[in-house]
């Protein structure tokens, strides 16, 4: 299948080809790929693309999957409205 037609990150519209272009240039750290391609920076927080990128890195580097660290998981777990946080602060003593 054409790598241009395979979407790796739905949130940020990143294709498998985009991923390969960077891996071939030597960017083989998940965190680097995240910063340059925005994979994992969308609303899903990397829950969809994380494992896909990990698997592609594993194949590309010929390393075991468990030896490929994923990007650091950052709070918040799911999208929270700023206004909702402001409301909650009013009920704190």
């Amino acid at each position, binding site marked *: 299948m054409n790598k241009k037609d395979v979407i790796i990150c739905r949130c940020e519209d990143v294709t498998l080809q985009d991923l390969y272009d960077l891996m071939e240039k030597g960017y083989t*750290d998940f965190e680097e790929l995240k*910063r340059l391609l925005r994979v994992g920076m969308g*609303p899903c927080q990397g829950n969809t693309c994380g494992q896909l990128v990990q698997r592609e890195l594993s194949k590309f580097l010929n390393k075991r999957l468990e030896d490929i660290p994923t990007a650091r998981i950052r709070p918040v777990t799911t999208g929270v409205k*700023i*206004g909702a946080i402001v409301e*909650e*602060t009013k009920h704190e003593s």
Partner: protein
Amino acid sequence: MKANYVIVGAGISGTSIAFHLAQKGVKDIVVIEKSYLTSGATGRCGAGIRQQWGTVMNCKLAKASIEFFEKAKEILKYPGDIEFKQEGYLIVAVNDEEDRQFAENVKLQNRLGIPSRKVTRAEAKQIVPHLNTDAIKSATFCPTDGHLNPFKMNDAFYQAAKNLGVQFLFHEEVKEIVVKDHKIEQVITDKRTIETKNVINAAGGFSKEVGLMAGIDIPVYPENHEILVTEPVEKIQGPMVMSFAKNLYCQQVPNGNFLMGRSNPDAVPSHSIESSWKFLDEMAKTVTEFLPVISKLRILRQWAGSYNMSPDRQPIIGDVKELPGFYLACGFSGHGFMFSPMTGLLLSEIILGQKPTIDIADLNISRFKEAKTIAYEKSVV
């Protein structure tokens, strides 16, 4: 292994210094980075670029850096987009003291050729229509300030430096700097020993530790600063909105997300880059006061990074009298990203014994020992 120059840190200061040295024909430059590219403060910053400062030195560095950024894509021959957008910074004054101080700042900035101006509440409303002008007294605006993508900009310096022959060692940590008779002899990492006479400390939050390895006590400390990003939405805000008194910066980046941060007044020196729920509370309240419509947006992520704080909130750039061959680019106090072109250019000139394009003798570490009166930068979030 041998090297002419060893640069510690592949953040924006390190890559810019590497590029500028290599561009001047220097060979055998090695950059050592303990993690991945842009893993430190550069990749965690608020992506803002401004010239509205309160000290002469900061104004000069910022203005010349913006002039570099305007041509950076061509100078560095970067194939990607560095997302440089000049839609200004709107800095709001919330009380009489700030109103007076900002009028002084604008005078200084204009004298140095920076096109900032004082604006009324009504004008501020035109510049950022969703700004709650009841919360402000006046503002200053500089249309050529703006946004730049830190990941892309650092990648651009990195690629340009690499193309000029600079060697980068990632996931490798400097453990020791061997000094004998006031001369640098070796840099020892967790993987190898490098024979060198010259070391450049661009280690950001860890520059104090790197200084101590060479026996130089740099009066800086790391401080945790938090930031968050919202979901992307259609463009509604061009400029960065900033308040020093209310402790806020907030901009919409080209991708559509809003990036915002504030400092923690109770922060103690530490290498922590942890996130806190308290920041979420305070950030949410502050941004809702100034930019009420933003409260409808969802927060996607929060993170933190280290400011490397100096005593006067101005950078330390230059050589070190006590140790020839040791050079510093640290203490940026949260603004190393936007000054990076000048950091690289000016330090490379100092290293090679050339006359610096901007006289930065006042930024030498010796200023703290000589106890001369130096300007303190108040315009910091």
